[in-house]
């Protein structure tokens, strides 16, 4: 598959195409990460995250294929890895120690809430998971979602999505209340 075909397949929701990109990119990035105080597990993790960024960019129409896809994946991986190194304070000893504790507090609350939402997603039915993923993560329009999930039309899909969102919201709220009682 060439880049255009790969992008088209990913846009179409093919996880296999993304896996292909992942496998194709892994080797070169692994070399880079190994040379920069990482190991092959770091490399796997980073490349996974990088191709997921590509997935999101493609689905949100933010990807312009000016460079080769592999170059893009490499550039993203490199950025992600440098960010992580910075976080770990590995890259520039002194710098890392100072910046380490600054940003954590602000994010902590939001991160915790997002994690609750993630957990609650697990409790939804398969259809609800799909429809919310399709709509928010893959940015598919309601017509496409209706087709994919065999709904009569976009309106049905829209109603279903609303229903699922409310259900998720309720689950999250319940968790909050339980937490507050404790």
């Amino acid at each position, binding site marked *: 598959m060439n880049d255009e075909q790969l992008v088209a397949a990913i846009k179409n929701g093919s996880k296999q195409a993304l896996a292909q990109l992942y*496998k194709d990119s892994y*080797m070169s990035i692994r070399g880079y990460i190994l*040379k920069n105080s990482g190991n092959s597990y770091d490399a*796997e993790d980073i490349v996974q*995250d990088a191709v997921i960024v590509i997935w999101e960019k493609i689905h949100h129409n933010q990807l312009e294929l000016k460079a*080769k896809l592999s170059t893009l994946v490499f*550039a993203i991986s490199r950025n992600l890895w440098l960010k992580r190194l910075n976080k770990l304070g590995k890259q520039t000893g002194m710098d890392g120690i100072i910046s380490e504790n600054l940003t954590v507090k602000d994010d902590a609350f939001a991160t915790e809430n997002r994690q609750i939402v*993630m957990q609650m997603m697990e409790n939804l039915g398969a259809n609800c998971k799909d429809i919310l993923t399709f709509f928010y993560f893959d940015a598919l329009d309601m017509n496409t979602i209706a087709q994919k999930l065999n709904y009569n039309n976009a309106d049905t899909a829209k109603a279903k999505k609303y229903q699922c969102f409310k259900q998720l*919201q309720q689950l*999250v709220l319940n968790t909050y209340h339980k937490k507050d009682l404790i």
Partner: protein
Amino acid sequence: MNNEELNMELFDNYLLGKLNPNEIEAFDLKLNQDSEFKSEFEDYKTIVLGIKDYSRNDLKNFLKEEELPEIKMVAFWKKPLQIAASLILLVGLGFIIKLVVLPINNSTAITNAPESSKAKSENIDTNAVSTEVKFLEIESEKKELAEMEKPLAPPVANVEQMEMPKESNSAYDNFKSEDVKAVAPATTYAERDDVDFNVLSEKKLRDTTITTKLLVFNYNMDAEKDNLSEVRITKAENKKPGKSLPAPANNTNAGNVNMNDKANAKYKIDTAILKKNKEHKTTALKNYKVEFWQSPINFKGYKFIGNTIQLYGLDVKNIKLYDVNNTVYIKVINTVYKLKNCSDACVYQTETDTEILNFISKL
């Protein structure tokens, strides 16, 4: 559609970037003025982010299941050597048969051995023939035997001789069993074994890490405007200058081999960015580990896996590496070779695209 649904649609459109500038302005204004609207939006946003996290995680789990390609740097020249080894074994077997089986069968008339072995089996016969011819070679070129070409050369000669058994037979007829004994086969054989083990190890002459910029070369652009950057590698230090260009014959014994293994030349990497173009940014820096190897059979070619480039039979002091449009080029003196990803033996391929060549020559 109730108010909540309407709000959610508005939020969706806002987050997915479907509002026009005026609507966005109005939305932002409402966020600032209406605290209830704002908190509703914040709650909504948290849930959407959580959904995205979930989807991302889901996709990541899918990718984790994927099997990654194995990192294999298996010496590709081992295959011909395996064939060579089996041929030597075969030849040795023929020799043993000649020495042990035939004397028993024809203990009274040794000179008749050729005819009787021929009658016995065609296979054994040809093997025996090549064995003897080979041992003649060994006898005459005993000293050069340890040279690197040798492990492969005899099997090649054997194949030729096996294809032409009649020619060999005349040589065979002139060759008496007594002569074979005179060669002292046992010691010669042991010697050959030694030679095999010492020489058949791949030698890494040196390695170096080269950082290149990923260049984007646009065919349509005026060449002068192109974003040019260059990595120049100059040899700064070489611990063992005498070893930098070892001829195969210099590396015959085990001591030399080990020394060469460790003789890694150090390179100073001198980066010179000649011109910068605002439109075309270099996307990233890339490190390549370039290793200079020598194979016992003097294979000329390369392997290119990930960021590691292994160059065989190309030990030149000044090489330049370019990454143009995601293709790696290596410039050796005045020749530009295109390197493809290649996990097995690939021969050097000269680049013929004049535009690429011009581009590189201007760097």
